[in-house]
């Protein structure tokens, strides 16, 4: 059964069906192959204009979207927080109107407020792609994690995925949880009770505060970054304590199945969430995630940018 993409925007994975997620992953297969060609560029979005609107700093996601857009032959403009009129007091709504007046066809938005992408999508005709909105969702990260798991494991259904660390503040965790559960995986969230509150059970995930109990049955461990810039002391006493209980150290990694995948959305705090050698070891697919992110973003831009806009 073939589903067709009908969405102008990609705001989150919560609203996507398993069939739509599969369609994005299969489309990404085709775009991943473009990266191996002599000419790594296709004309699919020729004549379209994409605006990378990054109100919150990001290098890897912005670069990944920029490369994806260029490989699809779109024209692209980057607007970052420091350079935008938002620092001069312009509202997001007015910024959106200005972009629209410049005939933007696609807007990729990174914003510190949850719901910002949704807000923008109802106010512009352009396609809006959520590149992370506060602690809400980061759909392309969720999709590229899923893609990487599917690529390495063959399928997602039936796998046990442990997401470890700062779940509370993580949009990556939310997008992963929605997508993984829809695709039939089991999800266990692991971290200190301050960062992994019981409320997350309502999404359908299991919760644990004992990493050593979860690791032996995991097929995938996804280590989230400890966000120094957002966290205060009250969430955990200190990094040393965090590493002792929740860091993936060499000795703890011995509990893992030999074919368990180690994932991290980056940027890595080596020696905090993960031991430096493990990040470069044979189980790590951290850099595959980056390569796959490009294919996923090409697929998403193609699907949202290619549909007939009313």
């Amino acid at each position: 059964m073939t589903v067709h993409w009908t969405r102008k925007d990609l705001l989150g994975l919560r609203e996507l069906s398993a069939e739509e997620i599969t369609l994005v992953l299969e489309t990404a297969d085709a775009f991943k192959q473009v990266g191996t060609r002599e000419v790594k560029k296709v004309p699919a979005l020729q004549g379209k204009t994409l605006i990378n609107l990054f109100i919150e700093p990001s290098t890897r996601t912005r670069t990944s979207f920029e490369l994806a857009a260029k490989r699809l032959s779109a024209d692209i403009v980057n607007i970052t927080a420091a350079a935008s009129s938002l620092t001069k007091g312009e509202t997001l709504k007015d910024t959106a109107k200005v972009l629209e007046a410049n005939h933007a066809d696609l807007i990729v938005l990174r914003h510190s407020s949850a719901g910002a992408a949704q807000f923008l999508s109802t106010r512009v005709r352009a396609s809006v792609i959520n590149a992370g909105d506060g602690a809400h969702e980061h759909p392309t990260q969720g999709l590229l994690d899923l893609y990487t798991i599917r690529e390495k494991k063959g399928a997602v259904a039936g796998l046990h995925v442990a997401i470890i660390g700062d779940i509370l503040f993580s949009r990556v965790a939310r997008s992963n949880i929605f997508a993984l559960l829809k695709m039939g995986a089991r999800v266990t969230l692991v971290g200190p009770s301050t960062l992994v509150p019981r409320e997350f059970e309502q999404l359908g995930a299991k919760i644990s505060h004992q990493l050593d109990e979860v690791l032996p049955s995991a097929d995938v461990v996804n280590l989230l970054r400890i966000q120094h810039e957002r966290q205060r002391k009250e969430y955990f006493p200190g990094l040393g304590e965090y590493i002792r209980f929740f860091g993936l150290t060499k000795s703890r990694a011995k509990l893992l199945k030999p074919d368990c995948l180690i994932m991290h959305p980056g940027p890595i705090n080596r020696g905090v969430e993960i031991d430096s050698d493990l990040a470069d070891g044979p189980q790590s697919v951290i850099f595959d995630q980056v390569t796959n992110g490009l294919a996923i973003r090409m697929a998403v831009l193609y699907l949202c940018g290619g549909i007939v806009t009313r």
Partner: protein
Amino acid sequence: MKKDQPPNETRSVRIFDAEALRRALRRIAHEIIERNRHLDGLVLAGIPARGVALAQRLAADIEAIEKVRVATGVIDVSMHRDDLRQRATLPVVRASELPLPLGERTVVIVDDVLFTGRTCRAALDAIGSFGRPASIQFAVLIDRGHRELPIRPDYVGKNLPTSRIERVRVRLQETDREPDAVWLEKSDETPQALSS
């Protein structure tokens, strides 16, 4: 891609049955052999979905005749099309697969129906992004006319004069799980590029 409904018996004419289709492909295989002296440099590259199945069959025919297994491939043209903005639904994109490098090879593009020629143009662009083959040829099961671009096939199973509002429906065992057949159907709908 259009949804399949059973052919309307009163308004459709069968052009090929399985046997006629088999013979047409066999003849094309002979013509490909005749024109290409170095079969080991040949790639039969099908356009999804039915072109891929036809390329496989042609390769099997050539092997039966000449005892040489020629290379096959897939060219997905979706990301090279010029009508993305005119379509209500996007074509499903598949990964292209071509043996590399292409430099010394002759690529034969294989498709089921040739209509406007726009798919073939997209295929030429797609192949170009993999490299520069020595030459490119074009094989189609049915040429129904109405070209919008200066494109001409090298191998044709059947020239089928049609009006724009008619449809050519190709069915293959591998892709459609139906007996091999080609139908010409009158349609009440507005003209469109079905399997163009």
